[in-house]
């Protein structure tokens, strides 16, 4: 890796080094440290819903309309936990391409490191993250949304390693309305159904 120019805050698949390595080849070999960080005024949600283009098929051969991924959204009463890692210019370009459905936002001012052992040069780097501000809206009145199993496992395992038992949605959601009912007490994980998912 050439000179690092920024820190990326990862909260979803970017919690996993092997997943980062898929976008930034050589990431695993470079032994870039991953450091836990919280963002004040942001919360982790499952609101990044994108159309299912055949990636997800349930055991009963039904396919949901959309797939939900992790997202971070502004919420003044909450804080979002994730990790940061350094990237160079090429890395940012590659991540932009990968997270093209998300927008890159600067969260330098609200980030707090959870460890004291931070390389000194990190203090001058901006902290960026990817947040989906305009998710996909399904065509029908009621959309079914699912979560990819590997993605869900990734989030769960990363949560344990970050000393946080994240409340996870169940096996998968069948119907968005019903999902919401079933996970009504998971407000920190799944937000209430929002008019924006309906036409």
């Amino acid at each position, binding site marked *: 890796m050439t000179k690092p120019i920024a820190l990326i805050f990862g909260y979803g698949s970017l919690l*996993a*080094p*092997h997943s980062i390595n898929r976008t930034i080849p050589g990431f695993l070999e470079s032994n870039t*440290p991953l450091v836990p960080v919280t963002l004040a005024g942001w919360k982790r949600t499952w609101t990044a819903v994108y159309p299912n283009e055949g990636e997800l098929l349930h055991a009963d051969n039904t396919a949901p309309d959309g797939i939900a991924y992790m997202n971070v959204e502004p919420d003044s009463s909450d804080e979002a936990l994730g990790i940061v890692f350094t990237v160079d210019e090429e890395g940012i370009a590659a991540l932009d391409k990968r997270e093209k459905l998300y927008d890159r936002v600067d969260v330098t001012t609200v980030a707090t490191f959870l460890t004291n*052992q931070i390389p000194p040069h990190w203090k001058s780097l901006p902290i960026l993250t990817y947040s989906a501000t305009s998710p996909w809206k399904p065509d029908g009145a009621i959309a079914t949304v699912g979560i990819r199993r590997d993605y869900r*496992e990734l989030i769960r*395992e990363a949560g*344990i*390693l970050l000393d946080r038992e994240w409340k996870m949605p169940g096996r998968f959601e069948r119907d968005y309305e019903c999902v919401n009912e079933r996970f009504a007490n998971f407000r920190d994980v799944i937000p209430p159904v929002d008019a924006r998912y309906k036409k």
Partner: protein
Amino acid sequence: MARSIAERLARKADMDGTVFDSAGVKAPKAAPPNIEAASFLRMEKIDILRHRSKPVSPQLADSSDIILAMTADITAQLRESIIPEYAPKIVLLNEAVDLSTKIMDILPPSDGSIAAIRRLYASLLAGVGRLVRTLEDPGACPEWFGAKSMERKFKVGSRSSGARASAATIDPEKRQFIANFLFDFLERSFEPPTITQLIEAVGSMGHRLGQLEIEELMRQDLHGFVRQDRQGCWVLRNDATKRRRDEAREKARARNAANQAKARSETEDEEKLTPSLAYKTLGITKETEVEEARRKYRALLKRYHPDKFHVDNEFREMAERKARRINEAWDLIKGELTQGQAT
């Protein structure tokens, strides 16, 4: 011959502004080159078949900034009888370049034998090579090279001015790179490359080295791996490839181990485990019941059991590190906890 060598070396050195020409004291007008010399230079990939000789003339001397003579005799002849009015411009090539090393006078081939031509070629290459290097570095330019406008055309090399060209002045990293490159080049070559081919190959990688420097590199950095054959060409020793591969593997292994150790100490909170930190790691206090503490310790080990992490190998390693840390913490305070509560 001298002109071709100079032109070629100057081209390598990005000295486009410089024009080289050659003329002979006794040379007839427009005679073709010696066929033996031409065929020898062909092997070195220099084509002089189209060159035609010309005698030294006042016009030629007038248009030149500097006139370099090959031997002391010719210098004297030129200064005294042929073009006395341009005497200040006339310099003996060996004097012009590097006064700290003595090169023998560059003699024209006494007979047409290949050995004589090779000798001439080698000495010309050394002399002209050094001349080009001298011209590259204005600081090292002798006084006779007074034309300021010309000086500016030449790039200032990385060598300190006036220093003798030697492999010792090369940056160690670059030197290692060139040595590796030379080794690979020898390995790839079907036939032993000539010294010119080596100079050119190194030049094509952006490093301008002369014969002396390359030979120094061969003798010092690739010592034991290369030897010179009867023709004076550098070749690899029989077991060189294998030995070098083993050496590289050994180095890579050491480097990897060091990297991993470094990365571990960076990512892990390598604060030295003190009893208070150990209590914190296990989430207990000194007053906690032994049974309660043991239950907590086991629960933590279970939580971070590496077999529970399937998504990512890195996750598994992180979990292993956590588990190791928990074990260390438990080992540190176990005795204290049981003793303290027993008394």
